[in-house]
């Protein structure tokens, strides 16, 4: 579904990604792990269009998207959340969701009711409340998003991305900063969503319980290169992986 061929990327003076070859199959829950600074976030940037790969190509469903901007890829079915959750801090949680749903209306060229109306329509409001309940934010719908806890912001951002009904969702550390209970819940939520709606997941994560609880495929990245990729249990046993990454932590 999503493929990287020989992708390279450098910041001025630092080579961050080298010759990355990666295939994400439709329906996978694909986790990328690696030590801090390995280049996971940079890889996400290049795959999602926030930055453009300097070498190699990125294809999505057979189409070359290497040079497409983020908003164009989103229109094709990409979704993305950030390592440090990004929401609209000066709006209420509900308004955050309304903005996301209205963006979906624009993508699909749907009308949101009479053009002269300033308030969002009733149907859209109902959907917004449902979607907030789905990520367990129904109780804080009228709070300003800027005052939410870190974990709540993460869940809101996940909800905003899901509102666009993406085909492939890139999650950069979806459970960072959450309590162990919240983590388990997010794992359940993501599994449920992925089975219910035909969704492909690509995520990075430092928490091994989340990784092995969720991933159907595992890729290890270190110093900008892929060390191993495959079935999670098998990758876990590879000596080179134990040495470079897992060995340090477990």
């Amino acid at each position: 579904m999503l493929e990287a061929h020989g992708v390279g990327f450098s910041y001025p003076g630092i080579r961050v990604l080298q010759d990355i070859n990666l295939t994400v199959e439709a329906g996978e829950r694909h986790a990328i792990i690696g030590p801090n600074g390995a280049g996971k976030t940079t890889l996400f940037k290049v795959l999602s269009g926030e930055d453009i790969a300097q070498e190699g190509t990125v294809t999505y469903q057979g189409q070359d998207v290497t040079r497409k901007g983020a908003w164009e890829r989103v229109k094709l079915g990409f979704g993305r959340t950030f390592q440090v959750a990004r929401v609209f801090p000066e709006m209420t949680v509900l308004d955050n969701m309304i903005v996301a749903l209205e963006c979906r209306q624009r993508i699909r060229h749907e009308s949101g009711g009479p053009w002269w109306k300033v308030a969002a329509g009733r149907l859209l409001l109902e959907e917004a409340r449902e979607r907030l309940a789905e990520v367990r934010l129904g109780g804080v719908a009228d709070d300003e998003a800027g005052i939410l806890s870190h974990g709540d912001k993460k869940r809101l951002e996940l909800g905003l991305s899901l509102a666009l009904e993406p085909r492939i969702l890139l999650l950069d550390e979806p459970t960072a900063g959450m309590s162990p209970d919240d983590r388990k819940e997010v794992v359940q939520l993501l599994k449920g969503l992925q089975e219910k709606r035909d969704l492909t997941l690509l995520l990075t994560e430092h928490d091994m319980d989340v990784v092995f609880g969720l991933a159907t495929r595992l890729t290890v990245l270190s110093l900008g290169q892929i060390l191993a990729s495959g079935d999670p249990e098998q990758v876990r046993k590879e000596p080179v992986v134990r040495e470079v990454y897992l060995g340090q932590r477990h």
Partner: protein
Amino acid sequence: MRNDFLDVYFSGVKGRASLVLAMLILVASVPFSPGSGLTFLVGLLMIQAVFAISFNILFGLTGLISFGQAAYFAAGAYGTAYLMQLDVGMPFLVAWVLGGLIGGVFAIAVGLVALRRASGIYFAILSLALGQLVYTVIRYSDALGRDDGMLGIDRPVLNFFLFQIDLGVGERYFYFILIATALLVAFLWWVWHGKLGRVLFAIRQDPDRVRFLGVNVQRYQQYAFVIGGTTAALAGGLMGPWAHILTPELAHWSYSALPILMSLLGGVAYFWGPVAGAIVFAWLGYITRTMPGIQELVIGGVLLVIVLALPGGIAGGAARIRQWLRRRRLTNEKEAGSNA
């Protein structure tokens, strides 16, 4: 946070409608007040209030600093006046709308250059430079009166074919300004509070997040540019017949500072903020009009104090008072409940 600060006293649709009506009646009664100086100032105030909101659509709503807003205002003012003076019998309303379109087209051009090439402070400086271009063009153009300005601009006659309204009679042009600016404010209110306003406000907070919601951010910033430029030009188009004269100062960068100061003073996060700022500005100008020399000093000092004391501007201060009132009411109700 984008709620209207006027909600302190008036909430709900009815309250708001009656407040707007009260404001309209108050302004409409100005020509009946003794002394004619006030009427001219209030007419100017209405025009400048629209000018200030047009700037704040870019700044407070979309997060783009435009240091060249006067260029659109002047383009509309000169464009309308020039078309009026052409001897082709063009109806005034057509000249006015065309003047607005000149501003809109200029905004598209500036937006194409500035949004593509620059961001942040570079964007601001580029908008300033492109604005000064209009100033220079006016100063060297014979048709626009060069440094002397365009003089003797008459109040127009509105021709509706079946009947005519001569706006030169009495204070009719004042009421024309009132109606025209009320329509422009209504339109800008609709932009600010509607679906378009919501996404522009989101872009101001985090353009990258909005890109990842599938929005071509640059195109929406361009929309904000066109709306801000066109409404500034339409406000400018009302100026010529009101003042009877247009001078190049209207396009100077110092005139661009006016809507910036009004918006900061009133509160950029609120739709009515720039209007509140424009009113205070006009009032300060009025009470210091007999102090030549120290006038700027007094106005500058007062602005400094207000901006420092009220970070959210006048509207922000009013919003805090509202929150305080509401909290007090809630605690009072609680106490009353526990006493019962």
